[in-house]
């Protein structure tokens, strides 16, 4: 029986990081609530403590994982576990965005038209439905974001970054470290430029989060996307750092792939945004 070719699956030793992570999230939650309700200082202190603890946890935990990976503790089966888990994690992210896309479609197809129908004239006399709309009461004049300025450039940026990260991946598989580092650096740069453009666009926006359901869906969708790009960029930076230290082999580099999967996911979400938030 013990003649099976499976070697043992790596089960990590007891670790303090989970509890540290929970403490961090609890502090963040308490800090956020304090900030909303009890004034500034308390909230900022708690949030700061939360972020510090979270950072400590992230460095410590990922430090462990990277160490285990580099010292060859992870066999093929562990690698497969990472693949499954990353896939399902991205699925969960897809569903998170689905909630906000759902809100957008619902507002456009259901609630705004309904508010303008015959019966609702009793409540909102004279309201003309259409899209974009900030609703019958907030509905002041505003200029929606056009698709063909910065957003189109951003689309190009992200699509290109999808290519560069793939280029880096090919280089990694071919053992070409220079191209790998170049490809990654280019991807990071594109991500940063994207974020810069997004900030610029926000700065120029002639409406806000409070501009009815249009402003709400616009900023929440693009905001969460931007947040994901930020995370993705940070992860790419970590990966670049590891590449520079000589981590990864052409056969064994799932951390790299996971980040590139994530990056492609962020890319696809953007395409959805571009079509449904900016363009149509």
């Amino acid at each position, binding site marked *: 029986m013990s003649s099976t070719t499976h070697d043992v699956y790596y089960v990590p030793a007891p670790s303090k990081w989970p509890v540290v992570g929970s403490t961090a999230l609890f502090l963040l939650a308490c800090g956020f609530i304090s900030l909303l309700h009890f004034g500034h200082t308390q909230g900022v202190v708690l949030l700061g403590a939360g972020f510090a603890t979270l950072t400590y946890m992230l460095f410590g935990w990922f430090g462990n994982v990277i160490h285990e990976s580099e010292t060859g503790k992870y066999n093929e089966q562990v690698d497969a576990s990472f693949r499954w888990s990353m896939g399902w994690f991205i699925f969960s992210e897809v569903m998170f965005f689905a909630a906000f896309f759902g809100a957008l479609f619902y507002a456009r197809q259901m609630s705004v038209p309904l508010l303008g129908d015959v019966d609702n004239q*009793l409540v909102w006399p004279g309201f003309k439905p259409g899209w974009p709309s900030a609703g*019958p*009461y907030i509905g002041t004049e505003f200029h929606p974001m056009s698709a063909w300025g910065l957003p189109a450039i951003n689309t190009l940026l992200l699509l290109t970054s999808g290519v560069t990260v793939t280029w880096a991946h090919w280089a990694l598989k071919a053992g070409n470290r220079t191209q790998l580092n170049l490809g990654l650096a280019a991807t990071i740069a594109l991500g940063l430029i994207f974020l810069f453009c997004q900030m610029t666009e926000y700065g120029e926006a002639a409406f806000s989060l409070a501009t009815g359901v249009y402003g709400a869906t616009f900023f929440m969708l693009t905001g969460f996307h931007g947040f994901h790009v930020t995370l993705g960029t940070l992860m790419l930076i970590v990966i670049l750092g590891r590449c520079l230290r000589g981590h990864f082999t052409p056969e064994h580099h799932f951390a790299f792939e996971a980040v590139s999967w994530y990056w492609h996911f962020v890319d696809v979400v953007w395409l959805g945004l571009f079509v449904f938030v900016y363009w149509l």
Partner: protein
Amino acid sequence: MKKLRVLAGALASAVPALALAGYDVNIPAPKTPISLQIYGLHMEIMYVCLAIFVVVFGVMFYSLFAHRKSRGAVAAHFHENTTVEVIWTLIPFLILAVIAFPATKTVLAMKDASNPDMTIKVTAYQWKWQYDYLNDGLKLYATLSTPREQIGAPDAHGKVTNEHYLLETDNNVVVPVGKKIRLLITANDVIHGWYVPQLGVNQYGIPGFIKDAWFQANEPGVYRGQCSQICGKEHGYMPIVVEAKSAEDYAAWVKEQKAKQAADAAPAEKVSLADPVVR
């Protein structure tokens, strides 16, 4: 074991109490064409479920009885049979189709509020109802009329003294009998529910939106209901009382109300619907 006896005692004392009181164990008597259909549908489904329950659990309890190890039963070895799987997939499906058919008709009838004889706009507030009779130009507010002192204080036997405790209002909604009444239901702060079981209506009032429903009372009478969606601390205290009257009585009531409203020195409070959410 002592617990068991207490339990048995509780059960035993409960049964005669029930029999004596003769409480309804069913939907209150339906008073509109729609609620009549609802009543019928409910009976039909309940009997179907009851029948399935008796058959299915008859089989199960027979098996539990007959195939006990203590009776010397030896386990058989079968564990698969595609034919029975198909059969017990199809039969429930067919039963459901039979139920769905009349239900569909009722849904369509229920949703058809066209060509009403009159229209009342219902606006819910925390915690009262406003009724605007759009055809007759009347407006009234209905709030709970059970005296507040009674609420905290049932009598020594835990009984409340007021017959219609919690189900009475200062201004009842009066409607003519036999007429199709369309309700335009909305709310001004949070979601409420306009719910009168005997009239077969249960419709949320959603702030900022108008939703419609309709009923047609078959016979004169007083029909009581309550707010059906949690709306804050007084959710239990916003009853609905509908009085269906004959055409003449209704006309007289309208006249009386008009006179009353004209006599009112203060004009009816103007409520802004523009800001539906109290922040």
